[in-house]
Structures are given as structure tokens and as C-alpha cells.
């Protein structure tokens, strides 16, 4: 039995915006795998809910006009993982969201919910950061497009204005074409867990496969919100695909990240594995891109 004051079901995006305007205190609910848990815990007990779960136009993975990949915000993790577009262009995103919770959660949980929560541990978020994703936000004023790194404001807070909802995640062509990536989720068990640390890396190699033309790395749980590691990126960009580069890249991570010391994991432990994860994720990404690490 859930302590819910009222539930309004939106039939369309416009309807959702209208409901949110009529009920400014209302919480948006999609799959409910976070919101219902919070209600049960008492944190959102007695909430009014606007359900957007029935808005089918917000589901699915497609190409938009300029070959950008558009992921409707209600697309479930299992549908993302099964999408031919994701499997071809950004398989790492499918792999990352396949590590969320268990099968039931992946069937009900959505990428929009995962990002609008504003939590640092979201398995999709570090990969979206690493792929320069853009959040599409639709509200009374129309549509806004915000880079994912700006969408996250602080822990638990994202850039959603009153009566606005996230309608899609977009990954531009220039952000994915030629890139190959790897995501490592470090958790305390093999399933049904949140990340102790998540690390998503991707690379664009030069045509000879010897030089790292571009590299991007993002972490979850290395700070209050997901983050890129610019020092690490700078240490490897334009450098040869060699062990030395990988090591420099991994070490530089410590200049960027600032994980918490908490009962979930010690800061020293998180820093230790962050370096190792960067090393492994870059190595794997270079291999996936057809390169080889020179010793």
C-alpha cells in the first residue's frame, strides 16, 4: 500500500505539461523504480504524481534528421540494450544499462528516470557524459537542448524547469562516429547493485590506429554528480596508443575526481580502483577501436 495523494495520467507530452502546470507540487513518475521506493521510505510519502508512462511517443531509439541518435526518455534499459542502432553505434551504452539492477528493473526503468534523478551512480549517466549526450527538455516554453553535463546541477538536482519534462536523450553524430568505448561498473556484487564507481571511456583512433586522436572519460560516484576527467583526457589526447600513455592517463584521473569517504566505500579505495578502471577501460577501448597497446 503506497501513500499517494493523487495520480494523474498524461496522454501526451502536452497533456503532461498541462498536468504539471495544474499541479505544481506533483512529482513526475515514469517506471516508478525510484519514485515508488522513495514513497515507501517516506521521503515522498503523500505525493501527487503525474504519470508519463503512457506517452508512447517518448519511447524508442531512432535517428533524427542529422544522423543524431535519439533515445526517447521513456525507453527502458532492456529496450536500449536491444536496439539495433545502439548495438551498432554505441554498444557500450547498451552494455552499461544492462548492468542496472536486475531484469525486472531493466524492463521498467527508463533512461529518462535514470538521468532526471540526478544521482551520481546512475549506470547510464557516466556513459552519456562520456559521449557528449544532450538532454531534450520540453516545457510550456517549448523545447530546450542542454548538454548532459549542464543538465546535472548538483546531487539530486537537474535542470528541469517548472512543468518541464525530459523527452529525449540525443547523441550527435560527431560525438559517436568512429568512437569505441568501454564501461566498467565496479559494484560489490554481480547484479542488483549500485555502482561503487562507474567508469566510461571511449576513443577515436587515427587512421593508422597508432595514435589516440580523441579520448573521453567519465565517472559515476567519483563526485556528487557524474563527471568527466579532463586532466586524464589531456594526458592521452594526441598521444600514441602505448602503455605509457595509458598509465599517464590513469594516473591523471586523480587530479580530477574527488570521491567521498563513506561507509559505502573509503575514499582511498575508490581512488585506487578509479585508476585501475581508467587503465582497463582505455585499454579495452583502444582494442575495440582496432588498435593495440604498444609496451
Amino acid at each position, binding site marked *: 500500500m503506497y*501513500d499517494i495523494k493523487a495520480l494523474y495520467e498524461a496522454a501526451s507530452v502536452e497533456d503532461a505539461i498541462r498536468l504539471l502546470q495544474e499541479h505544481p507540487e506533483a512529482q513526475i513518475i515514469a517506471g516508478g523504480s525510484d519514485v515508488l521506493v522513495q514513497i515507501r521510505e517516506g521521503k515522498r510519502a503523500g505525493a501527487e504524481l503525474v504519470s508519463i508512462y503512457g506517452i508512447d511517443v517518448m519511447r524508442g531509439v531512432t535517428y533524427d534528421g542529422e544522423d543524431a541518435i535519439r533515445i526517447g526518455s521513456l525507453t527502458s534499459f532492456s529496450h536500449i540494450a536491444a536496439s539495433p542502432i545502439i548495438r551498432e553505434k554505441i554498444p557500450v551504452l547498451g552494455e552499461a544499462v544492462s548492468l542496472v539492477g536486475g531484469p525486472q528493473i531493466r524492463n521498467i526503468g527508463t533512461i529518462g528516470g535514470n538521468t532526471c534523478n540526478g544521482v551520481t551512480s546512475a549506470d547510464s549517466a557516466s556513459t552519456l557524459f562520456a559521449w557528449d549526450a544532450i538532454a531534450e527538455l520540453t516545457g510550456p516554453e517549448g523545447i530546450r537542448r542542454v548538454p548532459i553535463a549542464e543538465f546535472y546541477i548538483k546531487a539530486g538536482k537537474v535542470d528541469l524547469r517548472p512543468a518541464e519534462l525530459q523527452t529525449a536523450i540525443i547523441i550527435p553524430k560527431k560525438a559517436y562516429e568512429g568512437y569505441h568505448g568501454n564501461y566498467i561498473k565496479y559494484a560489490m556484487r554481480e547484479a542488483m*547493485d549500485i555502482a561503487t564507481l562507474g567508469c566510461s571511456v571511449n576513443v577515436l583512433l587515427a587512421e593508422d590506429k597508432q595514435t589516440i586522436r580523441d579520448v573521453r572519460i567519465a565517472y559515476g560516484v567519483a563526485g556528487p554528480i557524474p563527471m568527466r576527467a579532463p586532466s586524464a583526457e589531456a594526458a592521452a589526447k594526441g598521444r600514441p596508443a602505448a602503455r605509457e600513455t595509458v598509465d599517464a592517463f590513469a594516473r591523471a584521473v586523480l587530479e580530477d575526481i574527488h570521491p567521498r569517504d563513506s561507509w559505502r566505500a573509503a575514499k582511498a579505495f575508490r581512488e*585506487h*580502483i578509479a585508476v585501475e578502471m581508467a587503465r582497463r577501460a582505455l585499454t579495452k577501448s583502444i582494442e575495440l577501436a582496432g588498435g593495440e597497446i604498444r609496451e
Partner: protein
Amino acid sequence: MYTGQSVKRVDALDKVTGRTRYTDDLCDRKAYIARVLHSTVANGKVLSFDLSEAEKVPGVVKILTCFDLKEKHYFPTAGHPWSTDPSHQDVADRLVLTDRVRFYGDDIAAVVAEDEVAAAQALRLIRVEYEEYPFVLDVQKAMEDGAPQLHENYPNNILKHTTIRQGDYEKAVQEPGLVKVEGWYETPVVQHCHIENFICFAEKEGDRINVVTSTQIPHIVRRIVGQALGIDWGLIRVVKPYIGGGFGNKQDVLYEPLCAWLCLQVGGHLVKLDVPREETFVCNRTRHSIRNHIISWVRPDGTYAARKLEAFSDQGAYASHGHSICAKGAGAFPQLYPCPNVEVDAYTVFTNKPVAGAMRGYGIPQAMWAVESHTEDVAAAIGADPLAFRRQNLMPVGYVDGFSKNENYYDSFNQCLEKAMKAIDYERKEKEYRNQTGDIRRGIGMAVFWYNTAVWPISLESTSCRMVLNQDGSFQLQMGETEIGQGADTAFAQMAADVVGVPVDRVHVVSCQDTDVAPFGTSAYASRQTYIAGFSIRQTGLMLKEKILDYAHELTRMPVFNLDIREGNIVRTTDGRVMMTLGELATEALYSLTDSRHITAESTYQVKSNAYSFGCTIAEVEVDIPMCRAKLLNVVNCHDAGKLINPALAEAQVHGGMSMGIGFGMSEKLLFDEKTGRPLNNNLLDYKLSTFLDHPTLQAEFVENPEPTSAFGTKGLGEPPACSVAPAIRNAIFHATGVGLRDAPANPHNLFKAFKEAGII
């Protein structure tokens, strides 16, 4: 013969089709919902409540606080048989609600409401004023002079201290040339995590109170509810339906007394108390964390000169099962690897933590973590092969324990080790994994365990059985021993079928224990039920058979000694002729106008024996050193549990125990905030119960030496599978990396610390 066969579970169809009714399924929808308010300080006193806002919530029926408890009936909670000797009774230190709070989560008030939402809303609106006292969470700090005291009459918070002294330790250590090996080994607080949280409901009927509860121990619940309410025990009726696991947590009386008391405070109306998972972790029972300190003095030839164990068991805030747990592990120490000079000091100590009680293994998983980790450390210290070192020192065949009179009749340890080694290809892997380098290394390790079935001679062992013959020749079987998911009902049916001589499907097990009608028994704990129940089933079955054959004599004029019951028929043994079916006999017996009899049998058997149940685990791991994690690749348990009554169910029992051992060894630990005593991870996300993907294929092997003291050659298998898994994993990691863990579990946090200290990362 049905015993020894993997017959289908008697409850299989109901369980897989979802027809089985558990406690919540039986509760009428008119029930009021009770929720408990728990203290938010770890040590102190409740001064006052402000209920004004909470009482305004629509649907709230009544809010009861510790100050509403007019008569204070302190009660014990351990699911032990009652002792009429006051010196052997469990400590009675609980009240249904308390103003003197001793851990973060203690029960101080309860809301009774018309539904769950109203109860939860009211709970959040109650304001409490406390007087706070300093608190202590560490077992050894709690023993220090000046530490916060939890209970009067227990100086230095020591609930009990027992010792074992054999030979002369101090003298023995003077022997020249001895190698001293010393280590500390600690196990964490873990919780049972049975799938069905504790739930009960209570309602008045006439002058009596009916309590339906998810328990392992209905007759004990009846006694304790009576004690807690201060009323005659016969006024309580306890019903135990099917339960979704217990693992020892439900071998304690949990909230049945509170629920019954709340029912009385609302005019006897039906009240349901369904404990959320978060509270199950904190406000039921946990497994004792035990810190062990072992010193061994060993000769270069691999024999022990002297050994010493100090065990500090963290009881948490109330006595519950108390020192029994630590004492069981301490008692195993001098037996598993006998040595002429031994000193053991076992302490059970109160701390401001959740209450520890029984949990699968009853002290032995903790003791084996210490003893078998230490055995590995000693072998390494003297350069001995760990297998050979164990074989050299393990309890020999013919060993008799002076207290329990248990005897090691067979070479069970070596037979189990042989079988397990073969199953996992130990010898090849042990050699292959020596002297590895690199980031990722494999290892293989073993641990044995000591266990004894049942509780004699410490406590009463009594079992009662009733058989009631039906017109069709089938019969009802009623036991005091309970089905808690382990398959007890099926094993009982198999034994009864064999003794009486009927097909197993002619035995109708009355699974539910209703204390008004079920035979008395103290129920599911101590891996005792198959062993113990076997005595009363055999005795009662023979009585039933005697009555049947007596009637068969009346009908057939054949001498009883020439008659037998075989597969549900009355058979003349001299020529094998079927004289009549048991159904024909039973119908005639019931409806005869000349000699009508209702054929039933009922008896009690007091068991005055007990049986060792030994075995081992071998585990193979892959350790990713830079990532500080171990992956379990293969694991095998081998048990000598005597003759198996049902091999398929025995295998399932071993799988379940191994799974609990994997969690205990690799991931589970309940954490507490040092600053407040607040539990930190009391939910199934943050408490790392292992998942399906954390398990390799679980292999179960058996050696079936018939147990001479047993009615069916069988002995305990409920808890033994959980006893040696964790140290085997720890020893496999040691084999892979050279780093031996002090503390369970072998999770990344502990591996990070240990690898750092060892300088390998």
C-alpha cells in the same frame, strides 16, 4: 523402502502453483495494522512522547507506548526448550515495549491503525524525548572498566564467561623448539534474510488469544507469549502455517508477544504486525559477530603442543540465545584438532547493537572461520601442506566427547575430503596455482567443520508423533517438528511410510502446527528434526502397526506374528498372500457393529543421544589483485550426514547452506554508524546478500556412513552446509595471493586493506 529415495516433496505442487498459504494469506482483511516505533538513540531512556499530531491521522485506532505497559512481565526470547530448573532458564530481559532503550532500533511504542498508510503516517509524526547515555559498539571495549553498562547484574557487560582447561598450557609452551602462531579472526554481524519477513497476527476468541505466526517454534511461542502477558499458557493458541524461511531468526520469539498485547489493548480485535525488511535487519535477530584470538604452539613435525582460544561474542543489547552460540564454537575448538594442552575462554558480551540470536550454524560458522583460517596459517608457518597438516591433526576415529558422549564412529573427515578433492580436481589445481605472478591469480583452499546434531545433553530432546488411520488405509501424520522449507514433512512421510508399511502417498502430513491439537515438540533448530523426529515416528508407527495387526488377527484369525503390512496390504508372511487391503481393514474397524475401533497411535520419545555431523568445503577462486576482488569459480561441500532420507532434498539443503556461506564469506556485513549506533545498510540494496550471479555451480557430495544412534541411520544436515564455506574461500585467496584475511567477509573493502598491508598493491 521410501527412505533413501528422492521422493517428490509433499508440498511441491502447492508451492509451485502458488496455492500454499503463508501467514499473510491467512489474515482477514479486517485486521488492524500495527507498526512499531523504534528508538533513535543507541542507549538511554525515553522521557516522554508527543502523540498529538500522530493521533490526528485519520485511521489511527490507538497508539500505545512503553508507558502504557502497566504490568512488567519480563520474558526470555530464545527458542530453547523451557527448563524447570531456574538456573538453566534463559535470561528474561525483554518487555513488549521498553522505556530503557539499549540499541538504535529498540521497541518503544506501537501504532495500531486501520491500514498501512495511516500507521506509517502516524509513526512519522510521533515525537520522542530521550535522556541519552554513552553507548558502546565494540565487544572488547564493552568489557573495559568504565564502559557504558547495558544491564544491571552483568558487570563489564559480560553476559557469561566460560572456560575449558585441558592439561597444562603454561607448562606445555615451555617445550623447546616450538613454533608459536598467533592470529585474530573476526566475523561480521550478518542477518538471515529469509524471503518472508517476520509476520504475525493475533485475535481474541472467548477468553483466549489466537496467534498465527511465521515461526519455527510454535510450542515455544505459546509458552513465551503466556510469560510475556503474564497469563496461563493454555490461554494462548499458536498456529504456524507454511513459512518462507527462518534460518534461526524465527527460532526466537520475535513480535508475537507485542502483537498479542496490542490485540488486548484494542478490545481483542484482530491485529497484524508485518515487519518491513529494514526492521527485520535490526529489530529481529542477527548472527553474533565473534572476535577470536588463537595461539598455537606447534612442533616442527606438525603436532600441536598447546593451543589457546579467546572468543569474544557480541551479543548486542539483549540476551536472546546468549552464550549458547559462543559456547558451541568454543566447545568445538578442543575437539576438532585435539591437543593435550588447551585453554579456552569464551565471553558473550552485551553491546548497544541489535540483538544476536540463532542463525544457521549456531556459532560454528564463526568458530570455523577462526579455526580453519588459523589451521591454514599454522600450516604455512611450519611449511606444511595444509591437507596433510589437517589429516595429521584432525579428530581421530574412535574419539569420544566426554560431555555429549558423541563418538566419531567413522573416518568421515578423510572420506569427505577425498570425495570433495576428486569432485573439484584439487590436487592438480593446488599444484598448478602455486607460485603465480601477475594481477590475476587463482587459488584453491579447504576447510573442514565440526558440528553436532541436536541439543542433548544441554537441553531437553523430546519428540511426539500422532498417527490417525483413515477409512481408506491412509493416515494423518502429525508432528511437533515443523516444516520450514527444508523438506521436513517429506522426510517424515518417507519414514512413516516405511515403518507402517504403506505407500508414501498414503501418509498425509498435517503440515500446520496448531498448539491446540499438534503434538508437543520444540521444533526446528539445531539440525535436529530428521534425527529426533525419527525416534517418535518409528515408535509411533510400530504402535500403529501393532494395533492394525491386532485387528487383522480378529478379522483373519491368523497369528499376528505371521502378519505384516506391506505397501498398504495386510500380508500373510508365510506365503505372501494378501489377506486384505489396509483400507478394507480400516473401514471395517471404524464401522464394525461388533468391534468398532478408531485406530490411532500417539507417543513421545525422549532422546538421550546426539550425533556428530562432519564434512568439508573446497573452494576455488580467481583474485583480481589490483581490483581487490575475489571471484568464486568452483565450490564443493561434502558431508557425512549419515544415511540420507531424501538425497534430492539433502542436496538442496546443502546448496542453500553453501549459498549462505558464500554471502557470509564474501559480501555480507551489517554496518553501524560509530557516532550514533544507527544501522547503515539495513536494506537489501546496501546489505550485500549475494545474488545468483555471484554463485558458481554448487556441488554437493555425500558420504553415507549410517549413524548408529539414529532411528533411521541419519543425522543433522540443516546447518552443517553453512559452516565451512567462508574459511575455504579465505584459504583459497590465501593460496592465490599469500594474503590471509583476518576479518570476514572477503569483500573488496577487506581485500583492499589486506593487500595494502601486504604491499601487493
